[in-house]
């Protein structure tokens, strides 16, 4: 049972990827071949098996809670496509409700 075009477009939206109708058949074929291959894992009885979340058993290390040097705002923003007043600039997020100012 493979993924339909509809399901793939849903996943693409979750991943913030846009797929064109031209790309879709190839993507569907490749994804479904891989999903078909990995379905062999369903045959294993894993009821009593704990998942591996970390390969080496170690305690979570905690660093000392002290202030240390970090990147300056200028360094941290130097690769940004748009910066204003030391902040990352993005398109408007909230729609303005008729006649408000630009802020």
């Amino acid at each position, binding site marked *: 049972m493979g993924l339909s075009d509809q399901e793939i477009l849903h996943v693409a939206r979750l991943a913030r990827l846009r797929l064109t109708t031209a790309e879709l058949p190839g993507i569907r074929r490749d994804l479904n071949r891989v999903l078909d291959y*990995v379905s062999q894992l369903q045959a294993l009885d894993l009821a009593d098996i704990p998942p591996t979340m970390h390969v080496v058993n170690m305690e979570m290390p905690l660093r000392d809670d002290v202030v240390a040097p970090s990147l300056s705002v200028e360094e941290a923003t130097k690769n940004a496509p748009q910066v204003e007043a030391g902040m990352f600039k993005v398109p408007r*997020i909230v729609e303005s409700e008729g006649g408000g100012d630009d802020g």
Partner: protein
Amino acid sequence: MAKSLWMEDAVTLHELFVAGEVRATDIVEHHLERLNARDPVIRAFLHVAAEQARAQAAVQDRWSPAERAERPLSGVPVAIKDNIVTETMPTTAASRILQNFYAPYNATVVDKLYEAGAIVIGKTNLDEFAMGSSTEHSAFYPTRNPWALDRVPGGSSGGSAAAVAAGMVPLALGSDTGGSIRQPSAYCGIIGMKPTYGRVSRYGLIAFASSLDQIGPMARRVRDLRALYDVIAGPDPRDATSLPDTTDATPLSRPWRIGVPREYFGEGLDPEIRHVLDRHLSQLRAEGHEIRDISLPHTRFAIAAYYLIAPAEASSNLSRYDGIRYGFRRESRDLVTLYEATRDEGFGPEVKRRILLGTHALSSGYYDAYYLTAQKVRTLIRRDFDDAFHTVDFVVTPTTPEVAFRLGERSDDPLTMYLGDIYTVTANLAGLPAISLPVGWAHGLPVGVQWLAKPLADHQLLEAAEALEGLLPPVRFPEEVEG
């Protein structure tokens, strides 16, 4: 012909430099000359930092013998895979989304290289975000195998492997998530090591699959590999997964007990590679080592588990590329369209495939069936190795089922490409240290043997590799066999 400096191994170059017999400037010039002669065809590098390397060499030439000696890689040219961030060179991960990106800091391993006196020659090509086994998925251009220019160098650290094999540098850094150091090392006839997970800091390694990623050394000689390993290994407060300095100093006692897992010698293994491996095992037996037939029964589920875990983690790690804080941006009216347009143009097809697969595997209603199931299978694979290492010191397998394939041969067939990782992904899933060594030739191309040890036994593994180097064919350079 007189031996040129580019033919020397790293430790020898360092020793000549310390003794004052050669200048760092000459070492760098010889390697740049070699690079300029070979790389227009091989294309191992994405960025060559010739002027920075020359400046570094000029500074080192003014060092006293003592200053040269206290830095273990002084005078030695090194290349860095381009998914490891560098402040003074661009870092692209071979992706359009990071074209022209200059990191505001160096990866810990890069700082360590500079402290050790290494001279950084440039940044090497890879499959985009290290996702691939051929370096054909680089957004910029593919790299060619120095031994056969119509074949791939392997991947994803294909640029580093090709650069070392062709003599452009004696040492390089790679990264290995499912075999990305070992497989290209095997395809290019060099030595590559994936250390125990957490042994080398990942701070500044562009994240692909965080529970699997590990930086490691690549070289033509074991003692060079070891010199580079010694420089980069160790705990790092900036990487919470880096291991405390618990070096297992247990000396290795002879004879070694060597496990040969039957699952790695079955269907799908090229008979000529099998033949080369059989000869290697006979030599080990003749040296007095004990060869044991063992079983790692869950090996056949490794690729399926890997291709759920790695894409799932990748889909999460790559969500940061949104066109806001760094990298490429496609301007749009609203934010969601900006994200989608940026990612659509910025990522190549293999990266998109894996993001989609991983997003699906983590999405509501599928998490248990896919990601959690794969993490449980990972436990079974770890237990297989735990059991094996109760009775053997090392596990020996082929590194790859086949020799380097032709460019373009697999680019339309992702699943077949994935299946080629069968012998290497288990070390990542289990966190084990593993080395690929050039053990012979099949179809006129290099063959790699993989040695695995238990977690934290990196030193024993390096010691074994050094001891058995005498059984390997002598180091050669590609043009010696060309005509």
